[in-house]
């Protein structure tokens, strides 16, 4: 094995609005059956990376539950395995993770005790499929110090919430800005990096000495003229979900046949925790048009252009359109839901009306389920 993996799953983002009250972005449900972190984990597993550390901090209950067994991604092995690093108070440190570099610094033993020469760093809030070995080959061929996976975003994308970069014709990164006010390029960093393990240890230790804690700002940007940092451009599907709009549209992407084919049918698969739910059930009066329905659902109403997650109950005479219904939601009879995201485990009383007028409405009702 040539590389170990690090998945940064600590983050929260104010752009997720109410959706991040409940969980870290890494645990956001995606495409009916998955969680955001499944994509990074499956990519690691499918790239034959056997040892993966997941760094969590913000509200990790949901994420920890999801990661309670590593067997779903085939990590339950004697060699390697899945390691979850949550901040802890130690003899010489009483801080939370003050940044991504600090998270790695506080668990530097994970890197020091490994023997694999390379480290692949990925973030848990992106939806994509990737063979990291291809990037690693590129990294070795370029004799790079750090390789950053990047993507050209279509014109008009709000690239200011990403790291943007400029490369020369050799793909050497000349300019790198984190969340610029005015972006100079529409090439963005995908948050996936490859670096030699010893190099990473050295850079992280040096940053820690200088009280610098962020991997992008204090290592990538600070060292861009000193170290050889290359870009690896991808053309394949890649989406970051860390805003309500992107989260919504990424889920809706799965209604397109070519996206479903790419993620669901083409080898290799994306793995997730298996829930042992029965098949979805459609009773008399159900009408489904252009929608994804997950296992364990019971549907009596009308569903159009929507993504319905697991174990959702939709009552008689309901009308659901252009919406995302997260896991384990109960929707009472005669309810109208349009342009909404319904938070998981919620109970929507009968005869409710919810419509997102200017954009997506997030519905969190917190009703008791059994006094309907």
């Amino acid at each position, binding site marked *: 094995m040539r590389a170990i993996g690090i998945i940064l799953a600590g983050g929260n983002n104010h752009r997720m609005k109410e959706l991040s009250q409940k969980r870290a972005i890494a645990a956001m449900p995606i*495409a*009916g*059956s*998955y969680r955001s972190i499944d994509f990074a984990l499956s990519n690691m597993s499918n790239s034959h990376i056997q040892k993966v550390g997941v760094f969590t901090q913000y509200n990790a209950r949901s994420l920890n539950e999801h990661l309670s067994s590593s*067997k779903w991604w085939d990590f339950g092995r004697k060699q390697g395995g899945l390691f979850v690093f949550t901040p802890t108070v130690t003899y010489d440190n009483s801080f939370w993770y003050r940044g991504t570099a600090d998270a790695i610094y506080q668990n530097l033993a994970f890197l020091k005790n490994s023997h694999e020469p390379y480290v692949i760093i990925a973030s848990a809030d992106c939806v994509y499929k990737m063979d990291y070995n291809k990037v690693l080959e590129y990294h070795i061929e370029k004799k790079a110090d750090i390789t950053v996976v990047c993507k050209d975003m279509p014109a008009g994308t709000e690239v200011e919430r990403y790291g943007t970069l400029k490369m020369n014709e050799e793909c050497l990164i000349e300019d790198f800005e984190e969340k610029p006010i005015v972006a100079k390029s529409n090439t963005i960093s995908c948050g996936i990096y490859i670096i030699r393990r010893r190099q990473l240890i050295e850079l992280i230790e040096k940053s820690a000495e200088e009280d610098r804690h962020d991997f992008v700002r204090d290592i990538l940007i600070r060292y861009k003229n000193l170290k050889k940092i290359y870009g690896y451009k991808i053309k394949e599907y890649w989406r970051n979900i860390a805003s309500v709009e992107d989260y919504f549209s990424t889920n809706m992407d799965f*209604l397109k046949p070519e996206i*479903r084919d790419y*993620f*669901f049918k083409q080898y290799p*698969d*994306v*793995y*997730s925790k*298996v829930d*042992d739910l*029965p*098949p*979805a*059930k*459609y*009773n*008399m*009066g*159900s*009408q*489904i*048009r*252009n*929608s*994804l*329905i*997950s*296992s*364990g659902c*019971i549907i009596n109403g009308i569903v159009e252009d929507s*993504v*319905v*997650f697991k174990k959702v109950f939709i009552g008689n005479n309901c009308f659901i359109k252009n919406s995302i219904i997260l896991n384990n939601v109960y929707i009472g009879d005669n309810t109208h839901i349009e342009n909404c995201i319904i938070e998981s485990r919620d109970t929507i009383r009968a005869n409710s009306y919810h419509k997102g007028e200017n954009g997506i409405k997030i519905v969190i009702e917190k009703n008791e389920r059994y006094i309907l």
Partner: protein
Amino acid sequence: MIKKEMIAMLLAGGQGSRLGVLTLKMAKPAVAFGGKYRIIDFPLSNCINSGVDTVGVLTQYQPLRLNTHIGIGIPWDLDRNIGGVTVLPPYEKSTSSQWYTGTANAIFQNIDYMETYNPEYVLILSGDHIYKMDYEVMLDFHKQNKAEVTIATMAVPLEEAKRFGILITDENRRIVDFEEKPENPRSNLASMGIYIFNWKTLKEALIAKAEQPALDFGQHVIPYCHEKGAPLYAYEYNGYWKDVGTLQSYWEANMELIDIVPEFNLYEEYWKIYTRSLTLPPQYISSESVVEKSIIGEGTTIYGQIYNSVIGCGVTIGSGTIVRDSIIMNEAVIGDGCEINKGIIAENVQIGNEVRLGIGEEVPNETHPHIYSHGMVTVGEKSVIPDGVTVGKNTVIAGTTDYDDYMNKSLAGGKTLIKAGDES
């Protein structure tokens, strides 16, 4: 020393020939059921839900599918350091090697396996029934009565009692007599083929009757224990229990799952049924689809119209296709513009475009009128049916078929078309 209070022995070696081509290449317990399950998932899930974590599965007929399904038992949490699930095929011995010649003979040949766990009780199960049962409650009943053998029973209508093994009990549920498929039944308590034995009693009986050809529980072991005066008790079970031994009962049991509140409810939170899931993605239903009164498994894509049907995982149903009252198993692909009436379409079947199944008058099947009946069309696993073919009722198709196999692109009602050995 290892000590398990109760271990289970699950008889899964039978062919189940009355399921016709469904069991051509797999044992009956491996046949798909209810969209995503296989029949054996029910007893295996019952075991783990009842706290029985040591299960020997006795296989003989076509075991490949069963073996790959069970694996090391991960889906049922039966991958254990001590115990767990063990597949027990017949094996060669230094003298007198033989196949499993009867239900009890299979258990007899695995005395060593049971001995390893040093059990107090042994639970004997068969792998061909659909039910949810707490074996721990049955064990409590067994212990309370200080029984040596307890037989699970259920009350059946008296007129149907002649199809079963019938038990006659006293007021304390102690068994006083039994009859196998009696003409004039004296009781309506039918044996479900589920037994709890004291290990000592079972071992003694198996060794004493070892020379009996085709050693069977109902015919030999239970009568032997009774004659010896061992206390035999009948435990009465009142829940849902369905024998899916014939195509007709198999079809009915599947169809019962789509009722508004099914008698056998898979949606209850406790007593989950576990299975090996290979497909995770949600199912996609297109804009022009209709889905009514059906259940559908993961990863299935539907462009057509589905009424009153049970659809498995990873199935594709083309646009304009109408499926009625049918069972379509995992990974089957149905083309565009088809019509399927009361079909049982096995796994990995490929049906072309404009194919019509279950058309015309009902004619008894020419070769197996008792198996392929009630107007069903049965298509065996991995079969291929070419574009534009019309198929009548009470028919069966297996293997890769082409136009040469059909008269003017049609197969008349009651015909059997089995091209064995044609694997694609």
